[in-house]
């Protein structure tokens, strides 16, 4: 909502600068996006009233006039001009050399077809006051030459760009903002503008409401002998500064009053209507060509304004093209109504048609303000078009009665955390239109939708006291302040991967295909929720490698989603990684994660279409492997683990045994086995055979070679034995060793290497 300051100040007399007004509004009322200057930007003194002393044809150009103009200096200025709608004696608007026009053009003293021109005689479009370039602006003869033009024309204004929230429809009106400014800064608010002129007749209008849910109020007024034409410059200037295009005097009045009071209006060419107007539901399939030229097919969901024959407007959103006022209009029917917000919002969304009108109705306009809007528009139409006002009707459904709400001042102070005296609370509410009664505060009609409970009154008080509210901390009776176990373990897992050299990435939760599809996908690539993470890492891995990175190792921690059969999908935290290089890369990373979480994993060979058939393993919580070469160019390895499962598997408390004072006996054993026998199987068998004296066990070497034989390999293990009871001797350990050798020979045909 653009609020021209000159307009605002017409409604509120306040001793505050624009900056102070903007500041107060932004803290207590609505966001201020900024204050900008509209119209002429440069030096205003270079725009003057000029008196044309002489005007003759340019000797070398048929379309140009040579003029001599008194601009209040000690000599007349010569100005070459392309317009012919004035002559010697006219008072005109002049911009002198050095002036900057609103379009950015800086005027210079220069020759036009050989004749000196010292400035410009201005047309409306050059001052951004209209699109008219047919002739220059001719001013009142009584003006003195040299008078600053800004005193005569709306050359410049400051404009406040306000962004009210949806709960404050009253702020989509200059008067509504003025009311806030008066309340915030102690200004004096003028009465609402508009006074009915005398009515010259009492002809019937024929207004009806068939859908009282959709239309609460419908005022119709008839005007005869309208002279259609352009709006005066003051009105054009106001509209321009508010961001609305000037169209014609009658249409401009409806827009002006909407901007002033917040209640949209519409004007129909009375002679094009067939009978009176009624607000009703559209018929299914009914057609209407709206003002933008689009033919719209309506449904019973749409509210229309209709004459005796057909729909003539999409209520509250846009009028119909057939009945719009035009240059040839002689008689006008003015509509000032009140429409229910949700229906307007739905219609406007359905037809993808948002207008200044729909934008207000969908927020809920005060039905009581429609009367004043009709009055103000009537006054202006009569003033600006010379029309006679000859008929009026005001049809109302049940207008809501203003609510009365009780406020406990001590409750307000308690919620705000600042002692605000009862008297002051009442004053604040009074300033924004809440009337104090015995039983509470009567809500002003323009706030009826937003203020319905005591807490809403408390908000009114709070917003006026915001800067004074102190900064305190809650007085705590209980403390939490600890990450949950899964959250702690998630950090541990992340940190383990940092140690392994992995960089964390964030990839979208969406993939092209899956069980959990979005009925309206974001795109072909983002059409379903992902069930695995690793696939999302392929693209960033490839892209980084393509960019010449020689060390690409990426991981992500995020949710995956699986259809559950119930109302909501199952969500699990997963951890996935990808790295350039072979199987060992994934294995190393996964080992680091398990080690960080204190879990002893079991690896088993597995197969997945996307993994190398000989280099893929699974654990209880996920998988790891080298990617199949057809998945991604080059050698890559990847892994994916279910973090929630890892958190469940992780030990709650570290298992601890006292450190034995007795030294351990260490032995290295190497066995030759078939290729098919895995290290894990051997380790498990050794552990089982060794019994409780075994303290440590690891595989530390793998060897293949001629002396071992084809299809076989040697695996070397490091063992440590110990006892809490005393120092072990070789004799103590010998039988254990024998049973290990025996077990491996029996179960795997393993041969101990000497």
């Amino acid at each position, binding site marked *: 909502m653009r609020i021209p300051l000159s307009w605002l100040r017409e409604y509120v007399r306040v001793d505050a600068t624009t900056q102070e007004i903007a500041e107060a509004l932004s803290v207590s009322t609505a966001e201020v996006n900024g204050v900008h200057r509209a119209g002429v930007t440069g030096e205003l003194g270079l725009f003057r009233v000029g008196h044309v002393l002489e005007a003759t044809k340019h000797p070398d150009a048929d379309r140009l006039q040579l003029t001599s103009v008194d601009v209040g200096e000690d000599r007349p200025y010569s100005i070459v001009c392309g317009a012919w709608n004035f002559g010697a004696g006219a008072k005109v608007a002049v911009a002198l050399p050095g002036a900057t026009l609103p379009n950015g053009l800086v005027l210079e003293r220069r020759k036009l077809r050989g004749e000196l021109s010292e400035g410009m005689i201005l047309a409306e479009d050059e001052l951004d006051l209209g699109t008219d370039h047919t002739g220059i602006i001719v001013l009142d003869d009584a003006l003195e030459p040299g008078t600053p033009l800004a005193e005569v024309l709306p050359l410049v204004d400051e404009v406040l760009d306000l962004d009210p929230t949806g709960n404050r429809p009253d702020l989509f009106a200059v008067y509504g903002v003025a009311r806030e400014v008066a309340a915030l800064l102690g200004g004096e608010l003028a009465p609402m503008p508009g006074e009915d002129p005398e009515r010259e007749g009492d002809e019937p209008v024929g207004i009806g409401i068939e859908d009282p849910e959709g239309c609460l109020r419908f005022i119709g007024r008839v005007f005869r002998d309208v002279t259609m034409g352009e709006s005066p410059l003051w009105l054009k200037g106001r509209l321009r500064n508010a961001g609305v295009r000037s169209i014609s005097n009658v249409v401009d009045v409806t827009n002006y009053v909407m901007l002033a009071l917040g209640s949209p209006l519409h004007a129909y060419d009375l002679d094009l209507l067939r009978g009176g107007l009624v607000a009703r539901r559209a018929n299914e399939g009914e057609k209407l060509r709206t003002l933008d030229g689009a033919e719209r097919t309506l449904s019973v969901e749409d509210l229309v304004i209709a004459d005796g024959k057909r729909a003539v407007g999409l209520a509250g959103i846009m009028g119909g093209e057939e009945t719009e006022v035009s240059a040839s209009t002689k008689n006008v029917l003015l509509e000032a109504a009140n429409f229910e917000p949700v229906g307007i919002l739905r219609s406007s*969304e359905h037809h993808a048609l948002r207008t200044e009108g729909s934008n207000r109705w969908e927020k809920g306009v005060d039905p009581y303000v429609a009367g004043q809007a009709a009055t103000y528009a009537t006054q202006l139409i009569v003033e600006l078009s010379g029309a006679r006002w000859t008929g009026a009707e005001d049809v109302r459904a049940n207008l809501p009665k203003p609510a009365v709400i009780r406020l406990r001042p001590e409750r307000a102070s308690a919620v705000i955390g600042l002692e605000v005296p009862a008297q002051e609370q009442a004053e604040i509410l009074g300033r924004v239109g809440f009337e104090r009664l015995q039983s509470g505060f009567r809500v002003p009609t323009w706030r009826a939708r937003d203020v319905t409970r005591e807490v809403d009154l408390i908000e009114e008080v709070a917003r006026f006291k915001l800067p004074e509210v102190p900064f305190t901390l809650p007085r705590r009776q209980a403390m939490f302040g600890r990450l949950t176990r899964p959250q702690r373990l998630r950090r541990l897992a992340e940190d383990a991967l940092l140690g392994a050299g992995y960089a964390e990435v964030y990839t979208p939760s969406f993939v092209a295909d899956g069980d959990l599809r979005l009925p309206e996908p*974001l795109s072909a690539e983002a059409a379903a929720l992902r069930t695995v993470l690793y696939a999302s890492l392929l693209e960033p891995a490839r892209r980084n490698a393509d960019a010449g990175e020689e060390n690409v190792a990426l991981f992500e921690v995020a*949710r995956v989603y699986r259809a559950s059969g119930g109302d*909501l999908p199952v*969500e699990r935290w997963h951890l996935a990684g990808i790295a350039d290089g072979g199987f060992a890369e994934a294995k190393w990373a996964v080992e680091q994660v398990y080690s960080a979480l204190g879990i002893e994993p079991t690896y088993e060979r597995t197969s997945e279409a996307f993994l190398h058939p000989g280099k893929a393993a699974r654990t209880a919580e996920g998988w790891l492997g080298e990617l199949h070469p057809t998945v991604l160019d080059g050698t890559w390895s990847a892994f994916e683990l279910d973090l929630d499962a890892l958190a469940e598997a992780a030990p709650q408390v570290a298992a601890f045994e006292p450190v034995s004072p007795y030294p351990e006996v260490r032995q290295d054993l190497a066995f030759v086995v078939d290729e098919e026998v895995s290290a894990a199987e051997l380790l498990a068998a050794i552990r089982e055979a060794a019994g409780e004296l075994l303290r440590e066990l690891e595989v530390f070497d793998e060897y293949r070679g001629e002396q071992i034989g084809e299809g076989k390999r040697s695996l070397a293990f490091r063992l440590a034995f110990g006892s809490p009871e005393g120092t072990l001797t070789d004799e103590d350990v010998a039988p254990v060793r024998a049973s290990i050798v025996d077990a491996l020979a029996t179960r795997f045909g393993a041969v101990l290497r000497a």
Partner: protein
Amino acid sequence: MDKVATVDPTDLQQEALSAAAEARTLAALNEVRIHYLGRSSALKLALRNVRDRETGMTLNAVRETVEAALTAREEELARAELEERLVTERVDVTLPAQLLGPPKLRPRGTLHPSTLVRRDVEDIFLGLGYEIVDGREVETTRYNFDALGFPDWHPARSPRASLFLDDHTVLRTETSPAQIHKMEERRPPIYMVSIGRVYRRDTIDATHFPIFHQFEGLAIDEGITLADLKGTLLHVMRELYGPDREMRFRTHYFPFTEPSMEPDVSCFNCGGAGCPICKHSGWIEMGGSGVVDPYLYEFVGWGPEEYTGFAFGMGIERTAQLRYGIAGIRPFWENDLRFLRQFR
């Protein structure tokens, strides 16, 4: 020349296709190719000596069919040979990585800037005695909208603004549903921050992405005030942006708080004098906040005045943008290592 005359295109094609299918190795397949399509093959000779247009077309069709069959078979064999080779590359997956590789020595990795901010935010609130809640990402409309007081007409309820799985299921548009779940789970005191992914139907551009991360706080207790909200956020903002920061609060509107306010922090870059970061206002907008609307207490079955509380919500990416001076949203999702490696 006699030989040429005896070529029957149909027989030739049949023969070539069978030979291709029977080839068991790429080498064998290559023999087949030379025999049927090579320079001195019957087909090539016949083509060279073609006199009439019709014969030429027939022979060319045969050539193309055989060509296609050979290519397809070649891919099949290559894939099979690859699989065979891969099987011979088999390793003992149970061996420790050090015996398998060894793995590359890589410089220490890095956390994503959003995670750095997330951990910081978590630690700040842990210090204030808050619990951190992840919450679910797929929610019912009941928890995502109804419970939070979104009116029927609220634009967020539209599929144009939010991502629905069906009429009743939506990807959470804020992390607040987790707060309702917590309120249903237990009575106050509740001091919690929910953090995680949220979803909006935004078209991707320099500043928008359909996924972003929020942290939203909720404090409900006896005697909580708007002043406590101001004090808590002042502490948090000073932790995040430096001890000299000031705050102001501006009236706003949100469905689930009343009063509602937008918190601003004095610009850490210019100290309030005005600069591009604060758009020359001296203040930086941080998100939304307010006093918990009593509607929420009624929703979970508590009395409207048993407790009071406050809530606030802010963006993780926005915090990271401000803290590190990252422009736009794209770098957060591009996963360019040249970007990511700088966050140590």
